């Protein structure tokens, strides 16, 4: 009897177990599989190689350099306690360092941090090792259990300082581990553009990162890994920039504070884009060190400022062609004359001419040639504020240029409303007179002025383009062709016999241009920003230039010779 009951108990007992095991192993299996994966799989985002940047002739401006480092896998060094594991790892690094001939670069704290936070990932001990260390490593590889070589890519800029403000620089991506609906545990921290073209075209250059799964044990040590998705290399980028022109421009700006933009006025292709002083972007790789950044940021000459498209300058006399177009547009004939006596009075304000004793009788062309202030003050007063403002805005001033670049300063074309808001004052006639000669709160960038120079030469205002192959965007200027012709004649005179003779000296083609000298600041900081804008060949322009040099003497003597040298490098090459 007891035996039969026992048999029933045994059978029932095993049925109960079987039913419960079915629940765990069949019904709830998916949940436990997920729990298993969640605790034992670490997802790693792997960096994609970054695309290269070339100039229009295929010169490499930004590329990648293979960097060999020595990494340590923590798994072979695990000990019962974390302290012992850390000691073991540090001892192993010291041992390997002796064999390879390198010092241990990591502090104990850094090792501990790695153990605590990134145990499953390899620890990069020596980055960028030299050939001697590499040879020693390969020779002793068998003895160096747990150590292996790791190839990473570092950004390299083979042209050094060339076009540093344009190209920009990269930094390592911050630890943003959420990519869409995928959550990563670790990331290789790929390079991300931080400024310049590297930043603006980052999504283009950076490619598609890959995915790797690490299988870790209960303590977090990696046991195996599998690639889920291979990283895809970023696309290469070709710029309109011409490295030769850029080099010539930078040669001229060396030692100065200033900026220069050279572009093709027919299609907006930016041929040179320079800001001085500059810096060597290679020093920003692999990371921008804070001492370097601080010294650059603290420099009074502001090398980090991109003056080419972000510098705000009064255009000075380079604005006079626009005043001229406004006057012609209002029906004031080019032949209208004014006697320059060296000073022009508006109410109580006296505006002086560059030539203290005056130019005598001037018309539009000669006034452009001589850069006569009284003539253009008078012309502006007659044309009126609205005409000047409209002409300035038609030439693209006071608005972003639309360039494919992160820095695109709009600048200022002031009017009554703006002045009231900014200074709480109304617009005076004196402001109009000042504006007519490119002063009075007008602010422009060299990029804008290069565009103006090109537009004066071709009759079309184009959108500047950094990247090659972008569609041309241009608008026809609304000024009558004969008015433009008058201004062009004046600008040709500037170079042939006027204030900007040095701008065309020795250049194989005919150059048209305009000088500018804007006085800014008061007292100690009072200085002259000297301008020269030009287009060439005068008959059918293919090049437009705008250059500004701070602390210059005058546009004609400081800046025009530099532009002349740039033009010679382009046309006499």
């Amino acid at each position: 009897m007891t035996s039969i009951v026992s048999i029933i108990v045994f059978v029932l007992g095993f049925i109960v177990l079987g039913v419960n095991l079915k629940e765990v192993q069949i019904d709830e299996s998916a949940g436990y599989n997920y729990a298993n994966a969640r605790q034992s799989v670490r997802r790693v985002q792997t960096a994609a190689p970054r695309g290269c940047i070339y100039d229009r002739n295929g010169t490499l401006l930004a590329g990648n350099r293979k960097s060999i480092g020595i990494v340590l896998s923590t798994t072979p060094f695990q000990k019962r306690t974390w302290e012992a594991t850390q000691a073991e790892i540090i001892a192993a690094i010291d041992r390997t360092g002796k064999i390879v001939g390198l010092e241990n670069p990591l502090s104990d704290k850094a090792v501990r941090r790695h153990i605590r936070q990134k145990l499953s990932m390899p620890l990069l001990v020596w980055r960028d090792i030299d050939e001697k260390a590499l040879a020693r490593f390969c020779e002793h590889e068998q003895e160096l259990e747990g150590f292996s070589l790791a190839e990473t890519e570092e950004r390299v800029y083979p042209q050094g300082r060339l076009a540093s403000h344009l190209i920009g620089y990269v930094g390592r991506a911050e630890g943003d581990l959420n990519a869409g609906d995928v959550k990563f545990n670790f990331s290789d921290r790929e390079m991300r553009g931080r400024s310049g073209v590297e930043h603006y075209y980052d999504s283009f250059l950076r490619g598609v990162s890959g995915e790797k799964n690490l299988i870790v044990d209960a303590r977090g040590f990696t046991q195996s890994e599998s690639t889920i998705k291979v990283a895809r290399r970023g696309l290469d980028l070709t710029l309109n920039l011409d490295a030769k022109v850029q080099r010539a421009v930078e040669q001229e700006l060396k030692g100065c504070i200033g900026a220069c933009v050279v572009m093709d006025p027919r299609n907006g292709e930016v041929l040179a884009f320079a800001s001085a002083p500059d810096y060597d972007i290679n020093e920003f790789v692999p990371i921008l060190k804070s001492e370097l950044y601080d010294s650059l940021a603290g420099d009074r000459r502001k090398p980090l400022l991109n003056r080419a498209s972000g510098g705000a300058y009064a255009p000075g006399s380079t604005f006079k062609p626009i005043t001229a177009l406004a006057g012609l547009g209002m029906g004031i004939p080019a032949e209208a004359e004014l006697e320059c006596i060296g000073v022009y009075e508006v109410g109580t304000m006296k505006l002086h001419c560059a030539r203290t004793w005056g130019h005598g009788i001037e018309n539009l062309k000669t006034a452009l040639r001589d850069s006569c202030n009284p003539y253009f003050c008078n012309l502006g007063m007659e044309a009126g504020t609205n005409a000047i403002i409209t002409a300035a805005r038609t030439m693209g001033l006071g608005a972003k240029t639309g360039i494919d670049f992160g820095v695109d300063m709009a600048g200022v074309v002031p009017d009554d409303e703006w002045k009231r808001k900014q200074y709480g004052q109304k617009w005076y006639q004196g402001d109009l007179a000042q504006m007519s000669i490119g002063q009075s709160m007008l602010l422009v960038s060299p990029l804008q002025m290069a565009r103006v120079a090109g537009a004066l030469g071709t009759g079309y205002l184009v959108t500047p383009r950094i990247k090659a192959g972008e569609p041309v965007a241009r608008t026809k200027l609304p000024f009558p062709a004969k008015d433009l012709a008058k201004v062009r004649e004046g600008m040709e005179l500037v170079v042939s016999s006027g204030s900007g003779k040095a701008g065309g000296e020795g250049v194989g083609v005919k150059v048209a241009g305009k000088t500018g000298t804007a006085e800014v600041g008061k007292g100690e900081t009072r200085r002259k920003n000297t301008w020269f804008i030009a287009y060439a060949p005068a008959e059918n322009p293919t090049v437009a230039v705008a250059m500004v040099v701070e602390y210059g003497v005058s546009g004609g003597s400081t800046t025009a010779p530099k532009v002349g040298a740039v033009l010679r490098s382009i046309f006499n090459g």
Partner: protein
Amino acid sequence: MVRYFKNFNYLMFASMLALIAIGTVAIWSAGNARSEAVFHGMWKQTLATAMLGLVVYLALSIADYRKILEYGSVAAYGTALVLLVAVLVFGAKIYGGRRWLWFFQPSELSKLCIIMFVANFGRRFREFGFLGFVLTGIAVGVPLLLILAEPDLGTALTLVPAVLIMMFSLRIWRKGLFVILAVIALCGSAVMAAVYEAEKPGVTEERRAAILKWVPLKAHQVKRVKVFLFPEEDILGAGYNLRQAKISIGSGGFSGKGIGKGETNHLKYLPQAISMNDFIFCVYAEETGFIGSLALLALFGMLVVPGAWTAFTSNDERGEALALSVSMLVFAHVYVNIAMSIGLVPITGLPLPFISSGRTFLLTVMAALGMVQSVATHREVGK
């Protein structure tokens, strides 16, 4: 000799051999996952022990169990008492308990000794009625208390059904036995209810302490009951073992991950200290899946059901009691071990017969089953 081969229970023997084979593989897999090299070859030692056990098994199956009980049960019982005292005095302290004497665990061996003693003397105790019950209680209670002192709650707990079934079979104060069963069930429920009251969310620390003062369990045992009652709480602390055990078993799925390919075991998520012993079912179930689990249950069924059948067909009271008790002991081990791995009962340190790596227990179980086989081979046919 003809009767020996005719009465020999081949099903029981074959299932035992199959279980030994499965156990060897499971220990190989669990041992390989451990960092300490000493465990990698553990399966060889287990297999060698099983071979020794096989000799013992066959010898005992040939020998007449009645003679063994008659002449050996007192000696066995006395030896068990001496060893249980010795382990408390000289035993090595491992994981908070004194269970090891030199190379074996006296508490495992004592199970068979106690069963032999009661099987032999139960008949005489019966004559005293209630007093016989008390005498049996003392005979079992003394070694049981020594085992509890180690402490080895699991062993003590599996002995209770093994002894009770003998008392039923031998009709020792039978009417009182039902009362005992009721009292055990009541006490168990009361302890569960008390722990639930004390550990449920939102109970103040004073109230918890006040309730637990009345619960006759040690702190770590309360913790295990708590994990049983609230398995999802604290899965990184006290509930970690059960959680990982369930992940191992559950992720095995229908057909398992393959022999030697258990991830949770090899990645050491399954607690290493017990993966070869109390939690070896997890290692096995992860690698062989639900199919493997069912096969294992079937093999254990083919071991314990023929055991009870041997008792049924035996025409000797002692033989019946012995066969039933041993079968119940094996069943209790299997049931509690697998049930605790999936959270059906609170976690108790308890080996799974033939699969876990404990060698004293393996030898004990094989000797016990050898005696059951002896009961089968020595039954008087046609009487």
